[in-house]
């Protein structure tokens, strides 16, 4: 059996007296999709930073393809940086307004020193997210929120990662656009065999997109399992409370 692409093992992260993560274990298997759901203060953003190797645990271990990240092995980190790409919530702040879209999307190719024709790769990934290659010469401000999120996804895809880690990728978007971006992520994951880690407060979005769901509360995993059973048959009181709180349109 191969090791998970990403794995948190008993991760503790404290900030002063606060235990933001209190012994969290999560496995992300290659080619699968995992949603991490929680409210503010649940520790989901702290966990995300751990999985992206942007922060180190106070105790416990984060592993990338079976190898502990704690050793600060630069070769390992370089491989992780190319292989695990983030998509953030607000494309307005994650895209540099002074760079043309082509340069924005090529940025990870440059910084990771990916060999090959960058211009060609940029055109490829723009097409993959449903944008015309001509957009490369324009600036992010000229696009709507949904288009900007497509640009951010294209940038993440550019270095051919096997894992996308998305932090609230649709929360800043209008409802009518949200569905399109969710569909895009779902299609890309299927077509390219991507592993998807989705961090969100929105259990409905996780329900659309992820095979497994992890529910975080006060820095602990309170429930974990196949999304279908977590939604249909939640075992923990907190999960039930969370599900009951989601506003639903009454049926007709």
């Amino acid at each position, binding site marked *: 059996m191969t090791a998970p692409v990403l794995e948190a093992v008993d991760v503790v992260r404290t900030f002063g007296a606060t235990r933001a993560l209190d012994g969290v274990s999560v496995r992300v298997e290659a080619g699968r999709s995992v949603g991490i759901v929680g409210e503010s203060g649940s520790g989901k953003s702290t966990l995300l930073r751990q999985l992206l190797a942007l922060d180190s645990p106070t105790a416990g271990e984060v592993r990338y393809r079976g190898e502990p990240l704690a050793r600060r092995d630069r070769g390992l980190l370089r491989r992780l940086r190319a292989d695990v790409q983030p998509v953030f919530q607000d494309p307005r702040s994650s895209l540099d307004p002074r760079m043309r879209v082509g340069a924005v999307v090529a940025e990870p190719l440059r910084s990771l020193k990916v060999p090959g024709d960058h211009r060609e790769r940029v055109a490829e990934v723009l097409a993959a997210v449903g944008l015309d290659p001509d957009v490369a010469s324009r600036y992010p401000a000229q696009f709507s929120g949904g288009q900007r999120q497509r640009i951010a996804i294209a940038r993440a895809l550019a270095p051919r990662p096997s894992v996308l880690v998305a932090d609230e990728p649709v929360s800043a978007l209008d409802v009518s656009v949200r569905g399109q971006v969710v569909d895009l992520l779902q299609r890309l994951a299927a077509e390219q065999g991507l592993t998807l880690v989705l961090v969100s407060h929105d259990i409905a979005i996780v329900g659309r997109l992820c095979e497994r769901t992890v529910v975080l509360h006060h820095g602990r995993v309170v429930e974990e399992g196949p999304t279908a059973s977590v939604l249909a048959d939640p075992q923990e009181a907190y999960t039930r409370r969370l599900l009951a709180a989601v*506003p639903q349109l009454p049926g007709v």
Partner: protein
Amino acid sequence: MTALLSVEDLTVTTSTGRRILDGVSWSLDAGGRLGVVGESGSGKSMTALAVLGLLPEGMRATGRVLLDGEDLLTLPPRRLAKARGGQVAMVFQEPLTALDPLMTVGRQITGPLRLHRGLRGGAARDEAARLARLVHLDDTERILGSYPWQLSGGQRQRVALAMALACEPRVLLADEPTTALDVTVQAEVLDLLDDLVDRTGVALVFVTHDLPVVARVARDLVVMRDGRVVEHTSVGAALAGGEAAYTRELVGAARAVTGLPTSGGPR
């Protein structure tokens, strides 16, 4: 029966002549519950600001905003200031920006009581405590002595509601009042709002991008897009398939994206 608040042909123009709102009309009866829903750029928040006479510098409103037959758009500033907060109160998305960080919650609630109702000293303090209990801030003494940053997001929004209700307004205008809150806290605040409207009889205008949220508290619905009213209908009719194609689109998107899949899981 005449409406309590009616907006007639409200048009807002920027200094460069661009129309932000274009002929917006709707009305609200006493004790009514109106949801104003739209996506970003639809003009829903601008409508709320125009009703309150709080338009950003350089913007001009034409048309009429009638409160009990009196046009708020042409009221002299001092009388408008009295109507705002007194007759029409408001709650915004982020209570931290509505609350003064340097003042205890108690003093912030007694502020409008002094200004609009002339209550002083012990009478003002007693009324502030009653309002705090009204919004279910049950640990009343501690909360009233706290500063906004010492409270949670949900508690802060309850304080903002207590302040808004302090002057027994006839209309409560709430602009995305639960959008910044966690979903479990949002559910509590929506229940509270629902209950307050029932108990105090205040008429509610609830502005939001979130259709499932508005469906929980509103009865009537105004759907906005690009500064215009697409449809003025009831929540029930809109959910059953509104007249306007855009309403149906919005309802469809909300069902697809915010609905919890009953079977669960992707694909």
